[in-house]
């Protein structure tokens, strides 16, 4: 027992008082404690940094509804589309049908029409799809590849026409045009928006002769003409938005406001490029208001001849399907119109000269034939 106790008491003694042993015990613990303190401190710093970052720079983390209800609703279409490409969260916020619907109806009052609403509901992304189709301008200058199989021609095209004066809508009309009947296919392509004897009032006072007034009209009368193919679910704006020319008719003296978009046509001597021309004809009396009496869309080729319904609809369909969409550039649209008008003039003059030369040659031939006949008859 005593031995046991002795052995028990004496054995740990040297161990307890051995400074090396204590040191060897203390050292790793202190190192562990230091490591724990350091890591917890760095962790603290990290979380602190995270907090400060999130509170100063990320708006979305704190108030996504400010962005959604207050900022996004105030953006124009291009900025909204840009915002949708920022991150997946913002894309989600920007993809709401209500935002795009509001943007569409604010841009085009015709989009409140039940016919249009019904058609848009079948588009893949609803109002977002039609907005990115119809808001930018249409750029279609290269003919479609030869192997490309065209879709069947559309049964009908829907026109959504809005006219604005100084940015305020003054006229909106939705019109369905059946494009598959024989009469349409075999006559020159023409979409008429107004009924005969229908007039639209404008807030503009009529002036008989004034260049300044006309250039002012060119600045303030804008037009959007959206063509919708409900089967292919595509749309395009075939108006230059701002007029490319304002002039008076040479005979009736009516005011003609012209909007034009040039696009690729089809193979042929004069149909390589065609131009969609929207003409707004206005009349009025001095002292009274200006009235719009005709709004129509035609398509003309490089010789100024009107395209037929069948070819015209095919060209429009191809342009809607393959045409690039770019930001509206009114200056470029005007340049294209001037260039196209010059081509028409040159081709007409060339045709005229050729016909004249033909006439001279045939006259000469007839004269020679007559001389020969006289000679033969004389002898």
């Amino acid at each position, binding site marked *: 027992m005593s031995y046991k106790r002795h052995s028990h008491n004496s054995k740990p003694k040297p161990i307890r008082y051995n400074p090396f042993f204590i040191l060897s015990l203390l050292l790793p613990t202190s190192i562990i404690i230091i490591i724990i303190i350091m890591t917890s401190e760095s962790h603290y710093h990290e979380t602190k940094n995270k907090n400060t970052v999130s509170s100063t720079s990320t708006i979305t983390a704190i108030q996504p509804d400010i962005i959604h209800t207050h900022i996004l609703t105030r953006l124009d279409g291009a900025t909204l589309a840009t915002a949708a490409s920022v991150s997946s969260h913002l894309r989600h916020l920007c993809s709401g049908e209500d935002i795009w619907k509001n943007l569409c109806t604010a841009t085009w009052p015709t989009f409140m029409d039940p016919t249009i609403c019904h058609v848009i509901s079948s588009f893949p992304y609803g109002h977002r799809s039609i907005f990115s189709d119809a808001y930018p301008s249409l750029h279609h200058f290269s003919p479609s590849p030869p192997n490309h199989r065209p879709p069947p021609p559309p049964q009908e095209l829907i026109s959504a026409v809005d006219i604005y004066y100084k940015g305020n809508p003054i006229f909106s009309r939705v019109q369905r045009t059946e494009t598959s009947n024989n009469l349409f296919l075999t006559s020159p392509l023409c979409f008429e928006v107004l009924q005969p004897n229908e007039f639209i009032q404008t807030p503009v006072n009529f002036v008989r002769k004034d260049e300044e007034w006309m250039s002012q009209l060119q600045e303030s009368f804008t037009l959007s003409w959206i063509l919708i193919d409900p089967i292919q679910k595509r749309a395009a704006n075939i108006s230059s938005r701002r007029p490319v020319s304002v002039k008076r008719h040479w005979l009736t003296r009516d005011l003609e406001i012209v909007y034009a978009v040039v696009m690729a046509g089809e193979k042929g001597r004069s149909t390589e490029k065609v131009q969609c021309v929207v003409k707004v004809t206005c009349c009025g009396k001095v002292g009274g208001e200006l009235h719009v009496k005709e709004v129509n869309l035609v398509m003309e080729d490089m010789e100024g001849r009107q395209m037929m319904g069948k070819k015209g609809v095919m060209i429009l369909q191809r342009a809607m399907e393959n045409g690039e969409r770019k*930001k509206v550039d009114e200056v470029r649209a005007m340049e294209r119109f001037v260039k196209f008008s010059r081509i028409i003039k040159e081709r007409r003059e060339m045709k005229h000269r050729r016909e004249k030369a033909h006439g001279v040659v045939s006259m000469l031939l007839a004269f020679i034939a007559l001389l020969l006949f006289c000679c033969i008859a004389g002898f």
Partner: protein
Amino acid sequence: MAEKASESSNSISLNTVDGKIFKVSPTIANQMQTIQSLIKAYDSSRVISLPHVNAFHLSKIIEYLEGKSATTVSAVKEFEAQFMKDLSLKQLKGLLIAVGYLKVNELLELMPKTVAKLIENKSVEFLRKFFGIVNDFTPSEEAKIREEIAWAFDGVDED
């Protein structure tokens, strides 16, 4: 600047996150919807603490509300334009968060309008920097999205 000693007994005390006490009149306080509902919930003598608003932002909000009520109707637009002009981009973002929390309706009209104007016709990169948002799209996703709306990037402003 912070302690606007108002002797009126019914002024409301607001405590910002950085510990400054503001005393505002009930008319000013009632234009902040969040505070309005807090006054209804507690009794008005208590100091209301605002965990998401710092002294600078609250002083700006009060400056706007007091300044606007003091200006004539015709000069309001000028006052608002000057108020927005005085803010740096960083201050604007911080203030927008404070305004969103306090629900100051008039500023919730004015400020997003200014923000919308600032980001109009700007690039995606500018918007990311502006909102402090990290791009979480994969490169292929982003390329697809950019292709879809290529028209929107046509002729954007330099950052």
